[in-house]
């Protein structure tokens, strides 16, 4: 309840030397080629692949050697080469997802990629959340809410 919509979104920006079309493609279709799975996944060193299904309703799926292991989120906005948005709940209840929007904008040096992570406030139980969380991310994200709320 004390967690409200005032919580500041996390915004990160990077400029890459490619056209928006190419940057968008690399970010989405070729996610596994660059995503640091070993440190940024639910399975960590067991994770072998991540795929973002490029369409509204598509999922972001983490794999290990035996197949899909978990969903990180669902694509909610698919507008290549400008915007992709997805819910974000690695290992967590989709109802308590955060929301990530990535925009691609042409600049002189190539493409400016802006990632905005918001929607912490969507968690209905906020700080008091006690349901079954299994990944360190949930722990971290939950505490992010606590610390900014």
């Amino acid at each position, binding site marked *: *309840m004390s967690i*409200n*919509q*005032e919580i500041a979104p*996390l915004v*990160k*920006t*990077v*400029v*890459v*030397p*490619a*056209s*928006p*079309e*190419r*940057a968008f493609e*690399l*970010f989405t279709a070729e996610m596994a*080629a*660059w*995503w*640091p799975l070993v*440190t*940024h996944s639910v399975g*960590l060193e067991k994770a072998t692949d991540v795929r973002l299904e490029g369409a509204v309703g598509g999922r972001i799926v983490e794999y290990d050697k035996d197949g899909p292991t978990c969903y990180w989120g669902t694509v909610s906005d698919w507008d290549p*080469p*400008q*915007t992709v948005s997805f819910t974000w709940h690695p290992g967590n209840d989709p109802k308590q997802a955060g929301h990530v*929007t990535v*925009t691609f*904008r*042409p600049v002189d040096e*190539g*493409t400016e*990629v802006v*990632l*905005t*992570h*918001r*929607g912490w*406030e*969507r968690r*209905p139980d906020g700080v008091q959340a*006690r349901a*079954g*969380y*299994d*990944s*360190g991310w949930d*722990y*971290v*994200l*939950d*505490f*992010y809410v*606590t*610390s*900014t709320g």
Partner: protein
Amino acid sequence: MLDALGDPTRRAILDTLRRQGPSSVAVLADRVPVSRPAISQHLKVLGLAGLVDHEPQGTRNIYRIDRSGLAEVRDWLDQFWGDALDAFAEHVRRIEGTTETEGTRSTEDRGTRSTEDGGTRSTEDGGGRSTRESEEGR
């Protein structure tokens, strides 16, 4: 911090402490499938990272989540996306590095869309969403 949270056992310990509340090593060893000495060792790492605190109760220590580690956790989250985007940028540079002059605007015929986008997106997101979500929250 990354190191402290990067280990599955340590995350399991943290999750257990979150769910169970303050716990002894014995209780943690029941829930997390590693030995007591291993639990103690992980608790030490978590303690050094400012994520877990403890106080003696009788002959044993009771461990609990230490919320003073929050600032670091927030930094960690910030770093999480920072690292991911850096990895992305590095990959693009590697792949596209030799052809970076090509394509920036060649295939983008609909030049007006990007301007339009840039102008409206921030207000849309800032105003519309928060209203909607505060209603959802009831």
